[in-house]
């Protein structure tokens, strides 16, 4: 593996098109104060920006701002502050206007906002979120690749187009991804199945750990990834942006646009993305068949019926085709060994191409969401959410007699989600969040494949309830929460023995989670945060009932229907330290003890088939332990220049066999230097940045473990 990942898009062209113009005398001003809705505190360093003119101001230490020399007209104002939802309003200017803005904190960040820096939006840093601006710049990348910029998150990659997020060493079934409030429902179990989300539709991406994660269905054992949308602004003007990104390696083109119009009657937002990339290139040869095509679309409608009632409708379509390196498609272990030792992969072609042939993946994901919100008082609201999803995944292998056009794996998953949620600020200092959820999932293998499926058909029914209490007492903020899930799993499998028959299996699982967290500012510059949580996770379908050859890993995988739920206790400690005004350090340490940890254990035997020998992997359980640290260091030596370094390290240990866990990411260091050269006439918010990533050799970790016991397989 290369120590540095070279993934610089060659050009990034971002065009913000003002879609209206304004009138004449230009002597007016807008001034006012920005405050936080939940605490009432003033918000220093908030950005107040007039989208149509490019003019803006930063609020001072008392939250005051002033923008001068404005013409008469109607302006679209955007007010942003790190950790808050950006507020957009339209303002009519016929004279000097004084107006105050009240911002909402992202609810999941009530207790983990880190504000760093002094006088410009560019120098602030949130510990665990990625803003719209960052997403826009990187929108040619996959969701997981963008999330990698959050410390503690790595990406598990399967070739050029497929990646999955890894949070604190855990991934797949253990990390839920919440797409606009709905738990993403697809084939999350597969290591080569990337989340079906276009990051560009999100307003911000975040990783939530701790108590706030309890309100989401799905497993939060590893963490919860949020791709959140924001509400459409109230100004009834059409605004939007177009982005085009060209990526030199693979000549990848990304074109995306977002248009929105607020207003009293019906607000709408349209988002669209088109991506096309050809074969990527290693230094000496093309990686044949690693292209990618993607077309995504989203429509959001909002209607405020009365002051108390409003509804939101959201539909998104994700549609992708991903090529898999032709030379990595193998038949058995002999082929695998041969492929690994070759200088250049088989089937490498001399010419670049946008064509995608087998092996490949085609994935379509529909998401429909309807939300009805009722807010009887300023401090209380109830919402009802329906979320429906349809996921269709087809994977194509190189097959005989024109069968390459017939998928080798074809899965269809339908899911329906219902939620009733209550948020109430019961006193000035305390808040409760509680709700009930129902989830139904139906998974079907299409028999068109002509291959026995790896995972069986199933239906899952889930009923859940959660409760979170948050309170601020003096300087101390604390929260407590619990969650209960009941799951019924009905499995309809094809027998392993001849003659083939249908076998039905029924399971019931009960999962409990509890969590408590506290945040305390030790001094003005140092804030500490501690969280302890207990979570259980029921085994998933692949862990219980996989059976057969998993082409993606070239091994025979066997599930175990007798697996029991995983039980985890996790302790997280964070310290945020503003050493100086221009220097900031965040340190995070975690320790997670997982009993009955489910993992794939390679077996001693090789299983003989007509295609040769294959290694056998069986799902087993062992008491395990995962621990690690994440570090963030940020320094602004002078105005206009910023250094950021992030370091993450995680270790996994199988306590029963006294060996390390597999699939734990290597230590890595990410460094970025950003230069803000200032504005050149019409070109504003310019920046130039260089990013380098260093992944430490696993050998260092071997040395670390040597002091304990080197596993025999490494001798």
């Amino acid at each position, binding site marked *: 593996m290369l120590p540095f990942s070279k993934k610089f898009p060659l050009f990034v062209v971002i065009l913000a098109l003002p879609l209206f113009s304004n009138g004449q005398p230009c002597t007016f001003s807008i001034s006012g104060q920005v405050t936080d809705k939940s605490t009432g505190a003033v918000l220093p360093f908030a950005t107040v920006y007039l989208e149509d003119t490019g003019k803006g101001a930063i609020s001072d230490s008392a939250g005051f701002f002033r923008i001068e020399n404005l013409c008469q007209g109607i302006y679209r104002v955007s007010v942003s502050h790190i950790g808050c939802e950006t507020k957009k309003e339209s303002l009519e200017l016929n004279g000097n206007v004084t107006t105050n803005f009240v911002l909402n904190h992202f609810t999941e960040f009530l207790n983990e906002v880190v504000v760093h820096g002094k006088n410009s939006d560019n120098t602030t840093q949130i510990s665990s979120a990625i803003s719209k601006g960052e997403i826009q710049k990187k929108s040619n990348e996959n969701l997981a690749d963008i999330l990698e910029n959050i410390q503690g998150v790595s990406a598990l990659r399967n070739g050029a187009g497929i990646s999955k997020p890894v949070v604190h060493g855990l991934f797949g079934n253990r990390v839920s991804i919440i797409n606009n409030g709905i738990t993403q429902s697809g084939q999350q179990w597969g290591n080569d199945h990337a989340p079906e989300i276009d990051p560009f539709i999100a307003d911000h991406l975040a990783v939530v750990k701790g108590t706030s994660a309890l309100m989401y269905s799905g497993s939060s054992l590893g963490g919860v990834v949020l791709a959140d949308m924001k509400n459409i602004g109230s100004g009834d003007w059409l605004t939007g942006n177009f982005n085009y990104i060209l990526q030199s390696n693979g000549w990848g083109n990304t074109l995306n646009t977002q248009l929105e119009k607020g207003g009293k009657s019906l607000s709408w937002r349209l988002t669209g993305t088109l991506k096309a990339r050809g074969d990527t290139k290693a230094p000496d040869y093309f990686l044949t068949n690693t292209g990618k095509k993607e077309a995504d679309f989203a429509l959001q409608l909002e209607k405020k019926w009365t002051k108390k009632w409003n509804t939101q409708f959201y539909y998104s379509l994700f549609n992708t085709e991903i090529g898999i390196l032709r*030379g990595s*498609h*193998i*038949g*058995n272990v*002999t*082929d695998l060994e041969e492929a690994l030792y070759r200088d250049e992969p*088989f*089937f490498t072609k001399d010419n670049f191409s946008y064509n995608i042939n087998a092996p490949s993946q085609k994935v379509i994901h529909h998401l429909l969401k309807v939300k*009805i919100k*009722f807010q009887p008082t300023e401090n209380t609201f*109830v919402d*009802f959410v329906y979320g429906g999803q349809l996921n269709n995944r087809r994977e194509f292998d*190189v*097959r*005989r*007699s024109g*069968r390459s056009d017939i998928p080798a794996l074809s899965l269809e998953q339908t899911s*329906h989600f*219902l939620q*009733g949620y209550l948020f109430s600020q019961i006193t000035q200092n305390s808040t409760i969040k509680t709700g*009930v959820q*129902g989830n*139904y999932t*139906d998974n079907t*293998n299409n*028999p*068109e*494949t*002509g*291959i*026995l*499926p790896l995972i*069986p*058909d*199933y*239906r899952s*029914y889930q009923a859940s309830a959660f409760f979170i209490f948050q309170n601020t007492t003096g300087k101390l903020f604390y929260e407590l929460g619990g969650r209960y899930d009941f799951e*019924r799993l*009905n499995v*309809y*499998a*094809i027998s*392993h*023995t*001849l003659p083939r028959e*249908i076998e039905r299996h029924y399971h019931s699982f009960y999962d409990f989670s509890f969590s408590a967290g506290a945040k305390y500012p030790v001094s003005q510059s140092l804030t500490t945060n501690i969280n302890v949580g207990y979570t259980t996770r029921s085994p998933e379908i692949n862990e219980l009932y996989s*059976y*057969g*050859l998993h082409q993606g890993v070239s091994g*025979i995988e066997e599930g175990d229907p007798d697996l029991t739920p995983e039980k985890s206790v996790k302790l997280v400690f964070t310290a945020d330290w503003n050493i100086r005004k221009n220097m900031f350090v965040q340190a995070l340490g975690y320790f997670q003890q997982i009993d009955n940890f489910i993992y794939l254990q390679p077996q001693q035997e090789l*299983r*003989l*088939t*007509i*295609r*040769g*020998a*294959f290694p*056998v992997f069986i799902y087993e359980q062992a008491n395990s332990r995962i621990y690690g640290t994440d570090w963030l260091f940020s320094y602004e030596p002078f105005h206009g220049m910023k250094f950021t370094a992030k370091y993450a390290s995680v270790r996994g240990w199988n306590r029963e066999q006294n060996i390390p866990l597999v699939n734990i990411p290597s230590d890595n260091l990410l460094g970025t230097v950003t230069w803000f050269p200032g504005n050149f006439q019409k070109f504003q918010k310019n920046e130039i940045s260089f990013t380098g990533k260093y992944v430490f050799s696993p050998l260092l970790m071997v040395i670390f473990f040597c002091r304990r016991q080197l596993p025999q397989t490494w001798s």
Partner: protein
Amino acid sequence: METIKLFSILMLGLLVFISCEKDDPEIPNEEELITTVTYTLTPTSGGSAVQLVYKDLDGDGGSAPVITTGILQMGTTYSGTLELLNETETPAGNLTEEIEEEGDEHQFFFSSTTNITVAYNDGDANGKPVGLETLLTTGDAGMGKLKIVLRHQPDKNASGVSEGNISNAGGETDIEIEFDVTIQ
């Protein structure tokens, strides 16, 4: 209160909905599966044929394959014919024809740890060997293994591949089987 009532009705509807069973899955027709490989060796000078059979009826994984081996005469040339069957279907599907039709995309490779040499005795549309028809020649008496590999989409123009050398062939392995053979 109306909304709570509505929500309860929805939840109740869900409960009714979940109590029905899903249809049985359709068992896929594994027409591409190779379950049986038969290598029939007939002495060119006449005499009874020897059959080497490798049979794995339940596909990848599951129970172990059944292997039938044979005894070859020393210093003899056999004409060899390979037959590939899918015996999960009735009547058994013949996959030999599929390989024949796509001869330019397939090639068998033979190797042995005893005194056996195998020469190709057929050709695809481009005159390159496929290996469904072969000539097998035995030398002195001995015991060892005979390995047969079928590669899909090998590079038939790579060096040595037409002569039966697998090392530069590439492609995916569709068959890789071994027989214990005795020459006496």
